[in-house]
């Protein structure tokens, strides 16, 4: 993969913090009196505000979806998490669209969440921060749209948990989007998905440094638990074959199943023998230094609770009867976290509800993470679909010009 440069990216971007004073009642019944959302914007909003695209992030994402935070950073800093897709001339083209990306409530990248100070006691919320659901996120995103003066998004796009937010938008605010792009998602989590999340949560809460979630007050954090949680999560993001490729480079035959050794020989002990072990530990540890454990706990619950059919007697088709936005659903062949069958469930439900839907099943070894990777056919399909969306925005502008 080639790293994005300043030239082919949206360039240097400046995050903004937007404060909302209106209380937000959550699905749980709890209320957040006021909150901040961190956002980034790329491209320019057109005169009739018809070219706005909202990007919804997945479990560990945030508002920094594209570009770089500083000129110096271009050398050593990674670009935003979806820089493969967002930028000038890219699939989500910042020359055509005004692209908004945010950090969701309960996150830990600047929006109000467990690390924020609870005004009631002057201490970080920690475990007292209420569980937020996808529906609550979408309600807060709708307020962000109001703030930005965007009545209707040209498209809302998201992968994984981000795709679930897109589905929720189409149900909660059917008139406020023209296109719903749902990538590598599922209509709800399976027992297996929830099981993996539970292992992640247990590893965090059983870390002695967790202190019932009040670890900030003890000047520590559950590093081991969060590392372990991320390690298990990371395995579910990759595929068997992508792991073989990644850890099978030393093998001349290519048939050692990715079992390349770390030091070239077996240690006959319980330390690292294979490259995959040190890789996972490295990934887990670096994540644990950049992410808040309470946020991780909370967002895995957000995932587990996602089930938009719950208000419709378990019939998701009924949920889709309102509205007329078009859908693009995309899945990846080697994704075993949310495999193609789960995306086809969404497609089939939309068909039964007589909705307009396109579906792509992309051949890729990238596993669940393929949605973040520059898979050529995926980018081509997304780009083709969005070129039509861009033309609609341009046409509506022309019509307005004629009217005025």
């Amino acid at each position, binding site marked *: 993969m080639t790293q994005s440069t300043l030239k082919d990216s949206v360039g240097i971007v400046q995050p903004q913090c937007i404060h909302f004073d209106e209380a937000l009642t959550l699905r749980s019944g709890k209320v957040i009196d006021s909150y901040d959302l961190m956002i980034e914007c790329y491209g320019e909003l057109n005169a009739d505000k018809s070219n706005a695209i909202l990007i919804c992030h997945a479990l560990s994402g945030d508002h920094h979806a594209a570009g770089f935070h500083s000129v110096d950073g271009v050398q050593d800093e990674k670009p935003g998490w979806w820089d493969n897709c967002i930028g000038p001339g890219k699939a989500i083209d910042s020359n055509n669209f005004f692209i908004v990306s945010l950090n969701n409530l309960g996150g830990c990248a600047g929006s109000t969440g467990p690390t924020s100070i609870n005004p009631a006691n002057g201490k970080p919320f920690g475990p007292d921060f209420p569980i937020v659901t996808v529906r609550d996120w979408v309600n807060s995103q709708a307020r962000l749209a109001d703030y930005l003066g965007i009545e209707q998004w040209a498209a809302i796009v998201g992968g994984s948990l981000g795709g679930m937010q897109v589905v929720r938008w189409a149900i909660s605010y059917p008139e406020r989007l023209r296109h719903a792009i749902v990538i590598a998602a599922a209509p709800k989590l399976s027992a297996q998905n929830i099981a993996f999340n539970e292992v992640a949560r247990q590893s965090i809460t059983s870390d002695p440094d967790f202190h019932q979630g009040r670890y900030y007050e003890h000047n520590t954090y559950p590093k081991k638990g969060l590392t372990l949680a991320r390690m298990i999560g990371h395995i579910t993001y990759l595929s068997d074959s992508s792991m073989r490729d990644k850890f099978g480079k030393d093998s001349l035959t290519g048939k050692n199943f990715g079992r390349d050794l770390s030091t070239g020989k077996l240690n006959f002990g319980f330390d690292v023998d294979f490259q995959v072990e040190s890789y996972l530990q490295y990934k887990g540890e670096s994540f644990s230094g950049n992410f808040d454990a309470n946020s991780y706990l909370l967002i895995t619950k957000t995932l587990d609770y996602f089930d938009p059919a719950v208000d419709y007697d378990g019939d998701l088709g009924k949920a889709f009867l309102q509205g007329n936005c078009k859908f693009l659903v995309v899945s990846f062949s080697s994704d075993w976290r949310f495999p193609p069958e789960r995306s086809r469930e969404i497609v089939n439900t939309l068909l039964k509800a007589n909705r307009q839907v396109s*579906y792509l099943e992309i051949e890729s070894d990238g596993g669940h993470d393929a949605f973040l990777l520059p898979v050529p056919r995926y980018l081509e399909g997304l780009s083709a679909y969005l070129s039509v969306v861009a033309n609609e925005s341009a046409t509506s502008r022309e019509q307005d010009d004629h009217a005025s």
Partner: protein
Amino acid sequence: MRADVSIIKDWIEPQSRVLDLGCGDGSFLTLLKQEKNIFDCGLDLDQENITKCLLAGINVIEQDLDKGLANFSDNSFDTVLLTQTLQAVQKPDVLVDEMLRIGKKCIITFPNFAYWRYRLYLISKGRMPVSTYIPFEWYNTPNIHFCTIKDFDSLCKEKSIKVLNRTVVDDKYQNSSLMNIDPNFFGINAIYHISR
């Protein structure tokens, strides 16, 4: 405009729902959208075709016809189309049943394998016919279930399928008096409009 398209499009009602199985690059659905303001849905497997459909703003679903159409509800479309694909599927009879379950009416076009030149080819050369119209060898042809107009008529009879309209044409989709006299001998392509 493809000649078969100009015949078929007259059978499609404005504002109706059309499902095109094997929709190719979506050009027929695009035309129907422009001229008849239909609700479009296409199925295809070819990646280039799917991208072309997306570029044209056609709703396209990547789906293998041979894996069935169970994901489509009964009577959910006004017309289900299958153009020049019947002979390439694994279970043509099952597909026809499925089309009639999903669509109120169906349009099916296929090459007539009883066309006199194909018969002559087989008799004189003793080999499977290869023509400019069907340019494949027996081992690499996507066409695995050839049928004739008589065969399809008997399938319709067997399944009590109503034939609303049948047009037999040549490779340029033109009709001639010879084809009307003996469609199964002189016709190259058959176009059927059927319902339950």
